[in-house]
């Protein structure tokens, strides 16, 4: 469903990779691998339409993503390095806003449940500013529980800063999403206990 051909990414002076092709079909989990600085984050941003490729194109359901941006973004969930948290709002307010901004609907009740589910039951009323690193990360990831309808999840290092229990839990959630016919594309340097071994794409193989 998600395909890319012949992608090239140029950053400043450096051509990070070229000729990169990828295919992601329903039910698949793709892990983008490679050492630091090889261009994993850059690839995810190309795929999600936040950046423009130097060459090549990304297609969703056969259409170039630039052609029908809104349809693509209706199907996409992207969680990047930056947590998209406003420091002055509580986790609940942040989550509700993120969902609404993405164009989805979610009542306070289900948002609250998602937060409790991810382990923030005691932090519901704190401003995000005082949360610990791992708690911040969790607020960002709580979206996953409310976005099952979006088939394509693109996650940049989702396991960072999470403790062991949370890593396990998240890996389970991702596996479930795939089992239900979704697609997940993620980067990580940690090993995570996925239900099935993920497909791996090594960006290093296309590096120049």
């Amino acid at each position, binding site marked *: 469903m998600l395909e890319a051909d*012949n992608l090239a990414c140029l950053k*400043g002076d450096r051509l990070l990779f070229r000729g990169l092709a990828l295919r992601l079909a329903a039910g698949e989990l793709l892990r983008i691998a490679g050492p630091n600085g090889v261009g994993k984050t850059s690839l995810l941003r190309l795929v999600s339409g936040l950046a*423009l490729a130097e060459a090549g194109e990304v297609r969703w359901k056969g259409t170039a993503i630039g052609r029908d941006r809104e349809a693509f973004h209706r199907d996409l969930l992207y969680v990047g390095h930056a947590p998209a948290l406003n420091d002055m709002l509580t986790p609940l307010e942040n989550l509700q806003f993120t969902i609404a901004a993405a164009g989805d609907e979610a009542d306070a009740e289900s948002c609250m449940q998602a937060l409790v589910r991810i382990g923030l039951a005691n932090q519901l009323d704190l401003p995000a500013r005082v949360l610990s690193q791992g708690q911040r990360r969790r607020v960002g990831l709580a979206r996953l529980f409310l976005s099952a309808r979006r088939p394509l999840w693109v996650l940049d290092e989702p396991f960072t800063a999470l403790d062991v229990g949370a890593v396990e839990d998240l890996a389970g959630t991702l596996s479930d999403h795939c089992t239900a016919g979704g697609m997940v594309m993620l980067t990580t340097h940690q090993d995570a206990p996925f239900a099935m071994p993920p497909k791996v794409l090594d960006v290093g193989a296309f590096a120049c």
Partner: protein
Amino acid sequence: MASGSIDQDNRMNPSPRGPSVLRFAAPQNFYPLAGRLAPWFAVTAAVLTLIGLWLAFFVAPVDATQGNVYRVIFIHVPAAWMSMFIYLVMAFWSAVGLVMNTRLSFVMSQALAPTGAMFCFVALWTGALWGRPTWGAYWVWDARLTSQLLLLFLYFGFIALTRAIEDPRRGDRAGAIIALVGAVNVPVIYFSVKWWNTLHQGASVSLTKAPSMASTMLMGMLVLAFASWAYTLAVTLWRVRPMILERERHTEWVGAVLDREGGRK
């Protein structure tokens, strides 16, 4: 060769194999063309400048009311014209770039900006020096003067913005937007300032136009105006060339050009 280069068609818009009119819009065709044309414009500019200066100082007579000070007009007016004209051309190229997605257009508008700012400064400077003996002040808040000053700020803003953004692709399009917004504002500024000044009727000076311009005077001004046209073209083409090299450095043809340049030394 050069397996590392990126496909040309993807980088260049319109395609180099497109209709013949657009052929020169492809950077690898434009680069040598610019190199060939620039010296001719430069020579034209130099010759016209010499003729113009000769007309300005040795043919044009002394002005009855102003004496010799008026000779500033020969650079003041062409510079003022150029500064406004260049901004419009920049906005034009920016619009073309945004609509057709041609990188060369953005490069053109950025290459024009410093020259435009230069002429703008020259118009202000010469105007200020002219104003002292004629109006008794280096500066008054006259409508025309004021809008010229604001134009200089628009140039500075454009240049500062495009310089401050390192990623050229981002800088190109950000600059294009501000150039267009500025171009919409130039007439607004001009008329608002004009109206503002007439309303305040405070400074009762206005540009004292030379009563009837002697034809030699007009001649000199026109010749120097053409000289500044030719100069602008030459300098812009020269400035565009390294900018093209920089942006297209991943392509084969720039590699070839650089090898040639390197070999020459």
